[in-house]
């Protein structure tokens, strides 16, 4: 077990180094903070609403575009250069490779979210917000981002082309985000309601409202787990079928 963890750590460290060696982190993190900061400031100073509700909603939309940029190279680059083939010849498992890379992407997400804590300074300075919904909102955006990154790793594992990986991930995330909108089509009846429950926007909305439903937590973790399993199968398939 300790070998498994230390191998994950080795890959995590290498990927994190790559994020900060290349311009990726230096582009994605400022964009995330500047754009979400703009919407937060607009809400606080213009609309005079001293909550993080709008900020969390906008962060979720923003991550729809930024998460694919974080994950697009993780697997596609290795597929393209052939280093994935070399990794398969080393005494490490597929799960180690995927988790190491995934945790590096999650670390970038956490750094972005930690950066957004500066929003709380004017929020508490100008208003008297309830900390509960803020904590729930941060948990929600963290879980949502983790799902996005898991989807991104899976799509990246299928491709040798980073652009294809990014566009493919965005496409899948948009489907998961807008699935709840099918609920509005009355003709679909109960089927429309079930689309609401598989939509990440519905579950994220629960956190933004300040509640932490167990079902939504389990849903987010399960969805991230599902795409982890699909990524694992994608690597397994490369060795056994191709």
């Amino acid at each position, binding site marked *: 077990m300790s070998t498994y963890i230390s191998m994950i750590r080795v890959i995590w460290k290498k990927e994190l180094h790559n994020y900060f060696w290349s311009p990726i982190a230096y582009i994605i993190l400022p964009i995330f903070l500047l754009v979400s900061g703009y919407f937060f400031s607009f809400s606080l100073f213009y609309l005079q609403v001293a909550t993080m509700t709008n900020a969390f909603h906008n962060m979720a939309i923003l991550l729809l575009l930024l998460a694919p940029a974080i994950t697009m190279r993780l697997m596609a680059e290795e597929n393209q250069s052939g280093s994935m083939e070399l990794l398969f*010849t080393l005494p490490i498992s597929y799960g180690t490779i995927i988790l190491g890379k995934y945790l590096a992407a999650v670390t970038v997400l956490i750094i972005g979210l930690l950066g957004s804590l500066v929003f709380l300074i004017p929020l508490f300075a100008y208003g008297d917000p309830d900390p509960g919904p803020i904590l729930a909102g941060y948990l929600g955006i963290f879980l949502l981002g983790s799902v996005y990154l898991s989807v991104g790793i899976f799509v990246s594992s299928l491709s040798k082309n980073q652009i294809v990986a990014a566009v493919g991930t965005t496409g899948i995330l948009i489907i998961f985000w807008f699935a709840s909108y099918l609920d509005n089509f009355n003709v679909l009846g109960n089927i429309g309601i079930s689309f609401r429950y598989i939509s990440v926007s519905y579950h994220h909305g629960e956190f933004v409202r300040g509640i932490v439903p167990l079902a939504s937590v389990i849903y987010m973790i399960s969805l991230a787990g599902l795409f982890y399993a699909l990524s694992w199968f994608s690597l397994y398939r490369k060795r056994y079928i191709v």
Partner: protein
Amino acid sequence: MINVQSLTKKIDGNTIVRDISFEVNRGEIMGFIGPNGAGKTTTLRMLSCAMAPTSGTAELAGFDLRTQDHEIRRILGYQPETPPLYPYMNVLDYLKFMADLRQIPSESKTKAIDSAIDKCKLAEMTGREIGKLSKGYRQRVGLAQAILASPKILLLDEPTASLDPEQINETRGIIRNCAEDAAVIFSTHIMQEIQHLCDRIVVIKQGQVRYKEHIRVTRATDNTRRHLVIQVRGNTDINECKIQDILADFTQSEHVNVDVRAGSGSAPHANPGETDVHILKLYAAIPDDDAMQFQLLQCLINDGIPILTVMPRESELEQTILHYMKN
């Protein structure tokens, strides 16, 4: 050490490697030669556990390829044809990363890295970003990562491609050095590599083994001797025994060795009515001396042995390989 049994790989319904079998012992270097697309890389990928075989199996250091691949990965060094390196890492960081993934214990990690750097002559490049290295140096970094953990099985896919002559010579030295305690397979399409380095040869074409030979006698390490192949026209009178008798005085010297074997193919210039005409091949190892070669040939001519060709052993091997690669 490596025992391959009927290994087959099909991709999208096409058979890339068909039923190949060969073996390599510890301390041996096997040259895997064949034209482009022959199935060399696919075979090495299967043996390196990067790709699972469709059928057949192989035993590497006593571990079964199909069921004990995790154990095989621990004792394996593999260099793909184009070393897949991370261009943003410097050489030392890359080797540290690979040493960690190869699970080299921390107490021996520095020693293993230093040894690989020393063997591959990378000392001046350790701080350089891999993306800024020349092709030759990248190839060396690829080789360094393969030999990091002193592997028992070393698989090298065209390790000398894109190296200059001096680097090729150094790489041969590294491979010979590694082979002292390991079984090495390396694929190439360069004939000289086989002649200078290999103990065994497997010629592969269209996914099938066409020729296998144990060729240690031709190793260029024995460069104090001249290895010749003399083809003579044999018949009922001129046979292996007669030639051994003719050369009896000559071969009494411990420095001369002549092995007579029946060659393949029919002999040209058969006289009318002459039957049982065939080729005899004399594999001679003599001191590297023109006078000695002249004496040997004179001895055969004086006894009326019709000599068809005289060529260095390397050329004969080259012709054999070309024959099996073409046909």
